[in-house]
């Protein structure tokens, strides 16, 4: 195993072990396991904060197990750990604090692999779609536990729905990629939102309305508060241990990149710089969450984990900051409280639009952030909370709008 692969494996192992350790320290192993089992059959739609539903220990254990599942999926497919695979595993871990469970992830990952086999490709070619595609896990949980199906039917039907969704994900994900041309980092969020529109409309057509669900933890738990800062410090420490002062130079070369999909910072600039970038992003956004007084609950930590994961794959302080400014301008302009649930999540997840700022400059980045906040408040209800990446959905629409206008202008005026 090459040095880079080993260090990425150590970092990922440290992350999962940290989640397991904090899970045991928070409420004990017994409470963690008991809550973990209950989580498998609990509602998973937005917004289901697992730390509030079954406690900190259970949520952290669920996140660690989903992280191991993601890692196994990468290994079984014979793919090395890299920027995009770590981003996908971190996203899975993060969202396992508010929606993903092993039970609702596996059918979708299997469906995506099946999709590859149908078109005579190897499942590894759709690996990332399978991992990010678990955004639609709540749909599987909804069919299994919320539709009122007989127990003998519920699991097989939910499994079939998960497989079916997985099969259609790759063609749609590739089609959606062309809409925004790689300027929305959460492309599967746009895809899952698109599928979610249909999925949420079906029960309605059958006369069954989907009740909205909201669980937002506000309890201050030291373990949740400490998790991201500790992980960020581990990333920074590892960057200097593995690469020394070279890490800083690599970081400086990362911030010059636009970050458009697919930008594997480990490959383009170096692992040390990528780890440093991840640590800086984690600390900076943790500080912001603390300053505005938002709780460090499941969804917020999930957002921070996703942000850190994409610190390997497209986001860095320079392309994230204009988006942040645009979000802040919109929140202040429309008088939205900065610590309200959907607003703080928009601030963290809205960074999916970072490549727009990276490629087209800070002014366009600020505009993108502004438009994102306007849209994301409404988009969650469109898919009934079935798509966990609601910000990826709104971000995809925002990016499509901006990219279309820029492309039209450039192709019409350039000689």
């Amino acid at each position, binding site marked *: 195993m090459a040095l880079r692969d080993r260090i990425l494996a150590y970092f990922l192992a440290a992350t999962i072990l940290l989640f397991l350790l904090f899970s045991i320290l928070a409420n004990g192993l017994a409470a963690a396991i008991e809550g973990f089992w209950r989580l498998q059959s609990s509602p998973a739609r937005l917004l289901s904060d697992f730390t509030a539903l079954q406690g900190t220990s259970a949520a952290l254990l669920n996140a660690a197990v989903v992280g191991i599942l993601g890692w196994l999926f990468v290994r079984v497919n014979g793919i090395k750990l890299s920027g*995009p695979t770590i981003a996908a595993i971190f996203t899975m871990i993060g969202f396992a604090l508010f929606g993903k469970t092993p039970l609702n992830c596996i059918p979708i990952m299997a469906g995506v692999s099946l999709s590859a086999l149908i078109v005579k490709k190897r499942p*590894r070619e759709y690996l990332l779609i399978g991992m990010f595609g678990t955004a639609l896990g709540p749909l599987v949980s909804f069919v299994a536990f919320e539709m009122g199906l007989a127990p003998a039917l519920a699991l097989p039907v939910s499994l079939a729905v998960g497989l079916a969704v997985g099969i259609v994900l790759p063609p749609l994900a590739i089609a959606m990629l062309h809409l925004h041309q790689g300027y929305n980092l959460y492309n599967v969020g746009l895809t899952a939102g698109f599928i979610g529109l249909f999925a949420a409309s079906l029960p309605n057509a059958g006369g069954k309305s989907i009740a909205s669900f909201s669980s937002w933890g506000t309890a201050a738990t030291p373990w949740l508060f400490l998790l991201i800062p500790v992980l960020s410090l581990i990333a920074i420490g590892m960057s200097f241990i593995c690469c020394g002062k070279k890490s800083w130079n690599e970081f400086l070369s990362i911030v010059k990149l636009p970050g458009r999909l697919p930008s594997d910072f480990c490959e383009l600039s170096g692992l040390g710089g990528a780890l440093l970038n991840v640590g800086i992003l984690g600390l900076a956004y943790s500080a912001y969450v603390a300053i505005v007084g938002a709780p460090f609950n499941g969804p917020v930590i999930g957002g921070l984990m996703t942000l850190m994961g994409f610190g390997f794959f497209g986001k860095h302080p320079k392309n994230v900051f204009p988006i942040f400014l645009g979000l802040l301008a919109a929140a202040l302009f429309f008088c939205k409280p900065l610590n309200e649930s959907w607003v703080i999540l928009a601030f963290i997840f809205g960074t999916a639009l970072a490549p727009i700022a990276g490629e087209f400059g800070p002014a366009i980045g600020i505009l993108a952030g502004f438009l994102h906040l306007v849209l994301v408040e409404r988009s969650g209800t469109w898919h009934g909370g079935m798509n966990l990446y609601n910000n990826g959905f709104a971000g995809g629409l925002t990016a499509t709008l901006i990219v279309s206008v820029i492309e039209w202008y450039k192709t019409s005026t350039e000689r």
Partner: protein
Amino acid sequence: MKRREFLVHLISELSSFLLQEQPRKMVISLHQEEDGIHLAVIDDRARSDGEIKAIEQALNTARRPELAGYYGQMAGHDLLGSARLNLVGWQIKHADVLRNPGGGVMLNLWIGGESFEYAKFSIDPEDEVKK
């Protein structure tokens, strides 16, 4: 993806890359065999050794099937922004970049299955340059 579509996308991304430097001339040559393809793209824009090395590195990037099957689909399709040769590099067997005697570069791309030996291919890039 069908071979025709695949080639159209590769040619489009490579052309986009060369055209963004506004060359005066560009030539695209394609030679297809049963088990392999040789694609050559030539321009007349002078480039530094560093630029040529960067092009060669981008085209000879390590195989990334997890990226090629998904993001590789953007090659030659989503052209807003800088051209990205690594999207092409993930999907080909081998590439080399030669400096043309009259300035400019020749990008040689070999595409084929595992058994395809580009070194034995009927077009020798060095012969092409000599001509």
